[in-house]
């Protein structure tokens, strides 16, 4: 059915796939900005943005009104405004690096998606094939390596802005990202120690991690979030810090730093920072779900294969690779969006930590905890897999 697609040259196919993924991430990042505003409003007992509407949509009964109340058109108005307003370049900035910074912010944010598989299907032999742009074996390493490049955009932006608060913000950003990267990496190690059992082919890819969480049996079907709760917790806290979300958004604390590294930015360049932040959140949530939340398995102890077999009892096309692929992507996206909701929920619950508290939590609490956690699991895994 889709043979024509595989006859297209590989380069063009990859470009098409990459564009498809970007076409999904950009609108999600845009929708996230509205979700952020709506969730903020709902938590504060307000209805949130609900006025803007396009006339011909307002004519649709019920559904048009629903879209209007949901604030969908505010997203478009915001986007349109950001695209068309004057993109000013302040006179006192270092122009080259000032323009470079938002571009540098976007590159790692969109590049990390490459290593993250977002679905899977079963081929004719019943083998699980992960869906992703480039599901290679060093997935986790690639994500860590590329996503930490994101800090360069903050440093560049803060330094090139040639002004006090952006500079302070970028210094904070770099210190915070370095502090939490360490415990984040250490928290992930037990997962890969467990996955890379002796005698198997070594891998740092996500697909194997998810495969490990979809085995049969009580321990096999258990998601790593239950098996290694401390790891999951440390990873989650570090993820909040890495994405500069509350309660760790000292980098962008409006009360003491105006707008931090993007103070001097406006219009589309500012929008790029914004999209980059949300893309980081999306990819970070995706990685968390792959490592600790069972990836594309619908429920703990219910793997994708089991779910497809169950659906196969009353849906004739349930085993078709296309259906399985779409189902797994839907499950995974659902989990990622739930995770993003959690990010926002926490944002409107917790106040911001002071900067010294952020450092203290990072170095004096999380780092020793993650080392202890790693030692515990290293010994336990050595004993079990002996």
């Amino acid at each position, binding site marked *: 059915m889709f043979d024509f697609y595989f006859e297209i040259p590989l380069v063009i196919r990859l470009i098409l796939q990459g564009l498809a993924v970007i076409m999904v991430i950009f609108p999600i990042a845009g929708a996230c900005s509205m979700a952020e505003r709506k*969730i903020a409003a*709902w*938590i*504060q*007992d*307000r*209805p949130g943005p609900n006025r803007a509407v396009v006339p011909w949509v307002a004519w649709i009964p019920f559904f048009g009104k629903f879209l209007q109340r949901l604030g969908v058109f505010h997203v478009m108005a915001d986007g349109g405004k950001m695209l068309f307003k004057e993109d000013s370049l302040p006179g006192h900035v270092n122009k080259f690096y000032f323009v470079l910074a938002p571009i540098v912010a976007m590159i790692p944010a969109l590049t990390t998606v490459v290593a993250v598989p977002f679905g899977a299907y079963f081929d004719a032999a019943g083998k699980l094939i992960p869906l992703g742009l480039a599901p290679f074996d060093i997935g986790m390493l690639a994500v860590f390596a590329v996503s930490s490049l994101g800090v360069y955009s903050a440093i560049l932006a803060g330094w090139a802005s040639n002004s006090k608060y952006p500079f302070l913000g970028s210094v904070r950003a770099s210190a915070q990202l370095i502090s939490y990267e360490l415990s984040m990496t250490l928290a992930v190690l037990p997962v890969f120690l467990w996955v890379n059992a002796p005698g198997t082919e070594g891998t740092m890819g996500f697909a194997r991690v998810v495969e490990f969480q979809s085995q049969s049996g009580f321990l096999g079907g258990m998601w790593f979030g239950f098996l290694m709760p401390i790891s999951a917790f440390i990873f989650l806290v570090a993820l909040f810090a890495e994405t500069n979300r509350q309660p760790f958004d000292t980098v962008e604390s409006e009360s003491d730093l105006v707008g931090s590294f993007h103070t001097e930015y406006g219009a589309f360049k500012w929008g790029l920072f914004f999209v980059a932040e949300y893309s980081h959140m999306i990819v970070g949530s995706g990685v968390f779900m792959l490592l600790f939340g069972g990836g594309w398995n619908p429920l703990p102890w219910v793997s994708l294969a089991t779910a497809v077999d169950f659906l196969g009892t009353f849906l004739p096309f349930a085993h078709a690779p296309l259906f399985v692929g779409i189902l797994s992507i839907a499950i995974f996206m659902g989990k990622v969006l739930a995770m993003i909701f959690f990010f926002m*929920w*926490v944002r*409107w*619950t*917790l106040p911001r930590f002071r900067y010294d508290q952020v450092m203290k939590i990072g170095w004096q609490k999380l780092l020793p905890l993650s080392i202890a956690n790693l030692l515990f699991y290293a010994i336990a895994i050595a004993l079990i897999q002996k």
Partner: protein
Amino acid sequence: MAVITVERKPLTFLERTYLPQIAGGLKTTFKHLIAPKKTLEYPEQRPAIPVGYRGVPTLVKDPNGREKCVSCQLCEFVCPPKAIRITPGEIPADQAERAHVEKGPQAFDIDMLRCIYCGLCQEVCPEEAIFLQNQFSMSGYTRAEMVNHKDRLYELGGTLPDAHHKWDKKKAAEEHGNAH
């Protein structure tokens, strides 16, 4: 005053991890997330105006439909920001039903850009002709638009019940040959 020494308990381990508090906070915010919203969506929904509210000052008519103001100018003199400007006038000869009333305003202007809604005009009025009523929003594109003229003031004020019927009593007394 007696001094009560409050015992400060050291934080338990769980409290120091900060996690139960976060969970409690998340529970609270989630309750609000699904709770009915408190916002009054203004142009469609209007707030209930409490009794005694001091809104835009207006002129009122008595139950007979006659204007009550006799242009004594007390409100004009008491008005702290000098927002009221009255041109006193005689009662027109063709209005027989008002002939027994001494005077009426020829023009009555309240500049709403000056008005401070203090209510002194209402307080001072001997005829109970000027009232600060429920209207709370005034807007216009020009300065001229923000001056309420006499006809506009009566349109806003309408008719209020009147317990005294002062001029009716005066007319009745005159017809009976009494001074008052």
